[in-house]
Every structure is written in C-alpha cells, then in structure tokens.
C-alpha cells in the first residue's frame, strides 16, 4: 500500500526543494532526496516511503524550472503524482524523468491525506483503503511512451529519435 501525501494548489518548486538545497549547494554525502518538502512539509521529508503518492490541487510545480525538484521526488521513489493540473515546466520535467503525472480532479477530491491506496500506474487503476475503485485518465501518448522507456534520455538512447518524430 502507498500513503497519500495531499497538498493544496499552486505548490511551487521552491516548496518542493528550496534553492538553498540545490544539489550543488549540498555537502559531500548529502542527497537532494532528503530535502524534498524539507520546509513546506517536514513530515514528508522524514517519512515518505517508496511508492507513496503525491496528490495535489491546481498548478502543481509552478515557479522555477529546477529539475532537482522532481529529481528529489524520483530519488525518493514516489510512485507518481495525481493533481488537478500542473505547471508546464514541472509537467515536462516529471515526464522526462519517468514520473507518472496524472490530471484527475475527481480523484484528487476523493483522496485524503494519510489514506493508504494501491495504484497500478500502467493500467490506471487505483484502489483506496476503503475498497473504493477509481479509473485514472491516461496521460498524453508521448508522455506514456517516454515514461514506459524510463524517461527522455532512455527513450532517445533506445530509439534514436524523439516521441512522434519520424
């Protein structure tokens, strides 16, 4: 089972990882994954487990283009993100890093912080701890292709082209 970490709207990348914890600001042996939500949600930084799910409102990941924000979440091995909507650069960055990013306002409404859920990202099936079932809408085709390959670098390495490019 995966825990739901629920956030509101307009969570900016400074909240995900403050600029002062950028990887190149860290000392030898420190890892950006330990600073995910270090100030905005310290209990996430302490307790998030691999497979956990971030659930958020509108415009998740707005602000700075810093890829170390989704990179910290990737290294934290979160299962994916379900939000009402995403900021454009964060959406790209997450897909490029192979993190599932689903837009599903109804599902966001139904999930509460701390719930335990089970998500099958590939088939889009989500089961809550009370046994309620949800169907997650699919991501755009190019995003599914990139995530299936394990991220943009893996995709380009494997196919020698961009998704959709002939």
């Amino acid at each position: 089972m995966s825990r739901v970490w629920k956030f509101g709207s307009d969570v900016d990348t400074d909240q995900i990882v403050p600029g002062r914890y950028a990887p190149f600001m860290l000392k030898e042996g420190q890892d950006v994954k330990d600073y995910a939500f270090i100030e905005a949600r310290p209990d996430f930084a302490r307790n998030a487990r691999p497979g956990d799910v971030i659930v958020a409102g509108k415009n998740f990941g707005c602000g700075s283009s810093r890829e170390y924000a989704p990179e910290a979440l990737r290294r934290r091995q979160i299962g994916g993100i379900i939000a009402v909507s995403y900021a454009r650069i964060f959406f790209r960055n997450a897909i490029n890093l192979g993190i599932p990013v689903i837009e599903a306002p109804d599902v966001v409404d139904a999930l509460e912080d701390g719930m335990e859920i089970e998500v099958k990202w590939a088939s889009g099936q989500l089961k809550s701890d009370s046994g309620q079932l949800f169907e997650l809408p699919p991501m755009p085709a190019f995003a599914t292709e990139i995530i299936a390959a394990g991220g943009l670098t893996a995709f380009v390495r494997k196919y020698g082209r961009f998704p959709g490019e002939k």
Partner: protein
Amino acid sequence: MSTFTLAEKILSHAVGRSVRAGEMITVRPDVIMAHDSLTPAIIKIMRERLGVAHVADPSQVVMVMDHVAPASNVATANSQNIIRRFAREENLRLFEVGRGICHQVLVEEQIARPGRVIIGSDSHSTSYGAVGAFGTGMGSTDIAVAMGTGKTWVRVPETIRVRVHGRFRPGVDAKDLALWLARDMGLAGATYAAIEYLGLEWLPLPGRQTLASMAIELGGKAGIFPADGDVARRFDVPDWLTVDEDAQIKRELHIYLDEIEPQVAVPHSVDDVVDISQIAGQPVDVVFLGTCTNGRYEDMRTAAEILQGQRLAPGLRMLVTPASSQELQKAIGDDTMTTLLAAGVTLTTPGCGPCMGRHQGTLGDGDVCLSTGNRNFKGRMGHPSSQIYLASPAVAAATALTGRITDPRTIEEYRPQTTDHSDSRPVV
C-alpha cells in the same frame, strides 16, 4: 485559414512547414542557453544518462555565469570550474561572472533576436519574447538532450492575447502592469499558452523585458511582443514576423492602463496582488532592486530620481544588483549610480543577486523585503519566515526612503513622468 499567431509563425519558420497550436513538433532551437546553477547537472545528464560525449552543434549553445556569481563557497566555485572546462573543451560561448543575467546578456549581445527559437535552463527564458523571439524555459534533462542531439520537442502553444489600451499614469510602469496581469489571470492563467502583447508599440525594450520575464509567473510557455517600435529600431526584423489580427487565439484580454495604480504582490504568492493603498505603511527591512525583471538602467534611474539628495530610512538596507555590466556602465555614465551610492545603497555584482536566496543578501528569520524581482514564494530569498513583497522600482525607492511601503506619488520631491522615455536611453 492562412493567419497565424506569433508563436505559430516563429515555430513554423523553425521547422520549415506550417504548424498550428496543439501540434507536437521536434524543433532545432537557434539558441540553447544554460546558466551556472544547473549546467553541471546538464553536462552529467548529457554524458551519463543520454550517453553523448559532445555537444551536437556548439553554435547553438550559450552559457552564462549569473546565479551564484562570483562563487559563494568552494562547492559553487568547483562547479563553475566544471562549466569553464566544458565550455573550453566543447568550444562554447561563455559569459563570465559579472557580465550579467543570462536574459539581459543574450538581448544585449543580440543572440536573442526577433524570430528566433530560444530554450533556456531558466524559467524566465520567456524574457526573450521582449525582442520578438520564442523563448521558453525547460528543465535540465530537456536542455541536456537538446545539447546532445541539437533538438527538442515542443507542443505548439495556444495564444492568449493581452491587448493594452492607453498609457501608464504617472508613477506607474510596466512592472505594475505585469503584477496587474498576475492579479487578473492568476499563477496558472496562461499555463501551456503563449501570451501575445498588443497595443504596446510605444513601450521601450526594458518595459517589454519586464513583462515578458513575468509571463512564466502566469504559467506561460512564452510571452511574445511584436518586433515593433523600439525593438524594430534596435534589431533586424524578418519580414514574415508580423501580427495577424485575425489569427485563431484562445482568449483575448483588454487592459486599460488608466485604471492601474502602483501594484504590490504580498507574501507568499505572485498573484496575491493589491493596490498600493491597501498595503502602504507596511514596515520593510530590506529593499532589493535588481533581477531580469527590473535590474536595468531605467530601473536604477527611476530609483535615483526618487533618492536624489536623500538617505535611506534609518535601519533599512537597500541592495542594488544591476542586470548586466552594460546596465551598470550606463548608471555610472551619468549620475545614477553616484546618487544611489550617496543615498547609502549597497551595490553588488551584476547577476541574479539575492533573488533565489543563495548569496549577496540572503534573508534571515522574519526579515521583510520589498523586491523589484518576480517571485515571492515562501523561503525564495532565504528563511521561510522571511517575507517578500514585489513592486516596481519607483515603489522600491519610495519605500527605501521611508522604511515603509510607500506610494511613490506621495514623495514630494519626485515628479513622476509617464515612462515613455524611448529617446532618453544613453547609447553605450
């Protein structure tokens, strides 16, 4: 249907066929920009994850040292040396510490010019729209893949038109309009879309840079001005880069400048904006004048006119970070910089300064800052208990004089003019 938005025209020209909003395209950008904050990660991703040893086309790539420049500690110094070595080995253009903020430098060097496609490792790469380019910010993986392959993927954006009517009232400028748009449209008001600014052919380049830099604060993919007026005087404009009034757009907003008062964004969101009358009197510890949004000569000039012959309020500190070495030279070329220094400001190295809280004025617990920058997210400039208000250079200087957020129009010695000083900009 043979009419196109500016974004569609520029991207169509780049791929050599007509493309429309909604299409996914693979494009070869004219410019790939990366700055010191992320380039070591970009190099690593290109070489290790993508498995490409060398930049595909060095003529596309430009690097700028601006985020933590000069280096603040051994780690940043070493990471900047990685960039220097890489630029030397790959034969890339590199603008060193002190040259200025990437978005200002690329415009000054005319690397950003009308009709070009420019991607940057910085979200404020929308700034290049000020000169009629398609500029957009991307993350490290995108930039690494673009460097390694020469290409990137883009979804051609829909366009939101902002049609502006009238002129600014005295004491009001492009920053107030940028904040007004954030107030009106919200942080996600232009997500995935390009903004096209119309009705501002009279607005000089610096004001256009202020607005285009903040297109990202509305979630915009790009913020593009027609290459007219001041921009047409400074740059060669391709003949195909014209506005099609009847192009298919998503939405059009009409803005009447005579309704706009000086605006202030209050902590901790760029779209939490009020008229200055609602926040005037708020005590401030630090005033910061700088950034890609408002660190140019005109911004320093406005501040100098207000601070002329005066001293900063007791207990207040003011940091001035010119956007570039050229902007600093202009401020030294007349009495702008001596006026600011006589008032008691601290001058820092041209670059991003304390905007993202890493150096040159990081905020401590509970510090209250009024900044001419573009972001006031919690903890952006330092401790999460610090507070950031965003406003124009005129509001910043008036606030520096009194120690409280102050409407510049109440400063007796200051006689604000409308900001149409297109002919007053000194030539360097």
